[in-house]
């Protein structure tokens, strides 16, 4: 099980992969938006999106858990 963490503070711009979806290593799961910059947050290993901890539009801090990949 791996936790997907925010690499910067900002808002959740887009959720690219939904709960239950199987994902490959390096696949974008969530795109964060902050200060006119979009940062995709990708899975670090293949698996299934077990849980999404955020919704689109939510504000997150650096290090917050965004999703759990199993």
């Amino acid at each position, binding site marked *: 099980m791996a936790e997907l963490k925010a*690499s*910067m*503070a*900002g*808002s959740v711009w887009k959720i690219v992969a939904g709960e239950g979806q199987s994902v490959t290593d390096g696949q974008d799961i969530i795109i964060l938006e*902050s*200060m*006119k*910059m979009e*940062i995709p947050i990708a899975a670090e290993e293949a698996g299934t999106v077990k849980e999404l901890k955020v919704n689109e539009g939510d*504000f997150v801090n*650096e290090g917050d858990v965004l999703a759990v990949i199993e």
Partner: protein
Amino acid sequence: MIRKILIANRGEIASRVIRTCKNLGISTVAVYSEADSEAPFVGHADEAYLLGGSRVQESYLNVKKILEIAKETGVDAIHPGYGFLSENADFARSCEDAGLIFIGPKPEVIQQMGNKVEARKKMEQAGLPLVPGFSRPLIDSAEAAAVAEKIGYPVMLKASAGGGGIGMQAVANADELLKAFEGNQKRAQLFFGNGDMFIEKLIEKPRHIEIQVLADGFGNAVYLWERECSVQRRHQKVVEEAPSSFLDEETRKQMGIAAVKAVKAIGYCNAGTLEFLVDADKNFYFLEMNTRLQVEHPVTEEITGLDLVEQQIKIASGNKLDFTQEEVKREGHSIEVRIYAEDPKTFYPAPGKISGLKLPEGEGIRHELAVQNTSVVSHFYDPMIAKLVVSGGSRNEAIDRLREALNTYKIDGIKTNLPLLKEIIVHEAFSKGDTTTDFIDKYIKKITV
């Protein structure tokens, strides 16, 4: 004459414009978002009005509301600053339709120069040298590959409506190009509402050198020398200086003459900047034109003694330029560093609350600030929170003063790129003027925070 101006912008540039207005005895109206209600620029203006929510669509891009406030407050003109609506031809037209002076060029010219493919065409006709490429939008990745083959790899893939490096990517071969084309086209469509892509030959180890111009409504135009802005991260400028230590007098003059010829050819009026790439052999190629005041305009002001905002307002008021090319001064050396609220290693944005601020003072030091102590740096806007401009009699003197100033500069509570700026300024390659656009990737390996 313009008596009252609304500044359709925020942060340091709003404060900058207000400062000149005060010197000229012009009243000012600031507009702001909810997130900016405590921002310094709001207090600097004579009057200030809330535009709406914090998102830019509700505030700084909210044309309807901005024009309503302009009408209610009885301003003569709108200064758009940079970014936001500054290069939006529709906004400039709406100002004109509302009987207001838009401080900038005519809407048609903004439109022409905003479309990079169109700008290339116009500038080619005006006799400017262009990076070898293709002056119309590419149909699809197959056409892109055929064009790239003809020009020869490596090439730069670019979005026609692009800016800030978005939709832009260097590709080394056909495989990379096919992979990059669709993604960048999609991003361009998403960001700019226009997915037109084009291709240019990649100029290797280039410098980014731009020419500042001023043109009035009577066909007079002058160039105010160059700025070198090669030190960049994420295709955005970090350090800017004037003059460039790389140019010789002859190249400088040729670039200036070419820029003036180009602005006359397109009927440009007001302040503008022509950006060029300059290769190792000092060949220069037109990149794009910015039809507005630039972030880095202070370094030009420092070496020429001119106030560019004042010049903009005078030209917009219908005045003639009151000096000739021969009368444009060039004295000393000036360097600006952009202070970003971001991680100095990854360049990721780092919004937050400032808990301490200490600014250097002394000869040749100028500040342009968007924040004060206890300011909240919001995630809604650009990460640039301040500019430090340091000048001296020579480049070495400016670098020495800048190094000392950066050692004193302190911002607590948020991450900033100050550690990166310090590393750049003390680097031997920077002192030598070995500043190509890959400077940070090439020389700055380790940032010690």
